[in-house]
């Protein structure tokens, strides 16, 4: 009886020893890890297939008649249609984001992080901004339609433009990305340790002097990354522009940026939307060409943001 127990015991000890020191591989663990990796590969595959699918159509079209496409305007005939006004429009919208959304967003973030005390008003600001960032783009479009096109129409686009002007579109897009700029800038400012600020206050600097000379230089890479990402978002956005009436038909373009402000406008993504909806095969090719140009635009901007972040990522 006693020997049998020891035999069972020694078997158990041997088993435990085997389990602890054995080299049995955890097959299910490896399968699990592979499945997880597969999800990332799926995302990569989607990107690659998308790029290949677009390029397969777009590259021959661009090689064949790239010069004409880049220099032609809008037309109902596919052989006369191009992306010139789309490029100009997207560029102008980018200027709006650069001049309005990014400075205002950074300023608001500075107020919330550096100046505001934890009052009820501050909490209202913060909650409000978080909610604004979650509002769908098309709702911003409706706001733009209600405010900039209908209400302020006589100012933003007088006469036959009926308010559906570049000014209305640019303001709508700028307000749409502003919450994103604010939130990313807030995070960048928050990451600057308070000892840096205290050093500035210690030598008698005012709050603005501390922000300008101590906080902003350290937060700059983070703020810039957010700004670049919001720019990419703005350049690719379509829905709000459609709401404020980005045109897909005739467009008169004369003069520079300031002359264009109260005129009608279009952009690369709105052109894609217009061309995709047309039944002719040639317009589908044109849509692919426009998409390739747009994607290259946006990927370059995004790559800039990613490189910037990897370059300056620091732990305090």
């Amino acid at each position: 009886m006693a020997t049998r127990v020891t035999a069972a015991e020694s078997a158990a000890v041997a088993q435990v020893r085997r389990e602890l020191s054995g080299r049995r591989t955890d097959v299910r663990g490896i399968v699990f890890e592979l499945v997880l990796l597969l999800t990332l590969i799926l995302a990569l595959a989607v990107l690659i297939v998308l790029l290949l699918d677009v390029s397969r159509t777009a590259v021959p079209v661009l090689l064949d008649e790239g010069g004409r496409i880049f220099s032609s305007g809008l037309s109902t005939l596919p052989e006369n249609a191009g992306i010139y006004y789309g490029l100009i429009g997207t560029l102008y919208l980018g200027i709006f984001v650069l001049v309005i959304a990014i400075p205002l967003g950074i300023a608001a973030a500075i107020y919330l992080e550096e100046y505001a005390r934890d009052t009820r008003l501050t909490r209202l600001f913060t909650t409000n901004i978080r909610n604004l960032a979650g509002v769908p783009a098309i709702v911003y479009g409706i706001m733009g339609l209600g405010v900039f096109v209908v209400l302020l129409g006589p100012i933003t686009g007088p006469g036959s433009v009926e308010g559906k002007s570049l000014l209305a579109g640019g303001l709508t897009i700028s307000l749409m990305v502003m919450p994103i700029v604010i939130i990313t800038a807030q995070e960048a400012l928050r990451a600057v340790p308070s000892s840096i600020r205290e050093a500035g206050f210690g030598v008698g600097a005012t709050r603005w002097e501390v922000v300008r000379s101590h906080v902003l230089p350290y937060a700059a890479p983070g703020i810039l990354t957010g700004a670049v990402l919001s720019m990419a978002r703005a350049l690719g956005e379509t829905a709000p522009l459609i709401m404020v009436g980005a045109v897909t038909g005739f467009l008169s373009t004369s003069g520079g940026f300031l002359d264009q402000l109260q005129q009608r406008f279009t952009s690369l993504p709105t052109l894609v939307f217009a061309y995709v909806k047309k039944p002719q095969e040639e317009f589908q090719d044109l849509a692919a060409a426009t998409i390739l140009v747009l994607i290259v635009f946006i990927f370059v901007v995004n790559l800039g943001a990613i490189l910037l972040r990897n370059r300056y990522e620091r732990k305090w």
Partner: protein
Amino acid sequence: MAQSVAGGGGVGAIDLRGTPSRRRRERRMKAVFFSAAFLCIVLSIAIVGSLAGGAVQFLSNVEFGTLWSSGWFPRRNLFDLKTLVAGTIMVSVIAMIVATPVGLGAAIYLSEYASPRRRRLLKPILETLASVPSVVMAFFALRFISPEIVQRFFGSDVPLFNITAAGLAVGLLVTPLVASVAEDAMHAVPNALREASAGIGARKRTTSIRVVFPAAVSGISAALILGISRAIGETMIVAIVAGGTGGSLFSLDPLKGGQTMTAAITSLATGSDQVRGTGPAYYSLFFVGLLLFLFTLALNLLSERFVRRVRTRY
């Protein structure tokens, strides 16, 4: 005067206040920053105001019977809301069927398995996918997802423009958002929990699923809710791919064309009578916009609450 404050000829608080010009500039900068922050409140008021104004116009002009009829045909004064809500829910459900496993899988891998170097290499892939404009994803859905996936698996009698293809494309677009928010949540789980689990002999897989995942469950729920909210608000894909241009009959078949709230707004804006008008069809745009705004607002507030729960725990 300074001496009287500091006493005994030392330096007092008033001496340290700086010159009047510096203090004036300080006040000016603070006012500038404050007005920038205040602009966001104005923006919210503008959003709610323009939505509510148009919605009230719509409700005071429309016959309430048409809000529950056979379909959404604004040009014929039929404003069946359940058509739009059903379409929106179908698209979002299909989108989340894609985005939940793919997004969470990617999040677990990046947070628990990937080495820092591999993480730096793989994360940009998700970010690049997130930066694809929705109109581009719509083109891809029309050219690839609909013919090569939906029609291949569900038979070629499925129309090219259908809810399923739109839902799949929206899902791909939402995946990076779900992945990045969920990854943040899992990353925030303290290492002590992982070490304790490993210390009692758990495998890495067990630790990931039974320890890290439950600890981060609030943040993961927030990621999913945020994903749903984004899927509901996604516009260009459904406007192009779902096939509801002009109007749609009420239907619960995801293999047919349908209409969502966002697509209905877009097609009203791009319709033959253009963005401006006076009839109920024009004002219905604001009403649907208000519904959309309230839906997404509710979801965002819900996800905010989940996120806050994580923050208080650790």
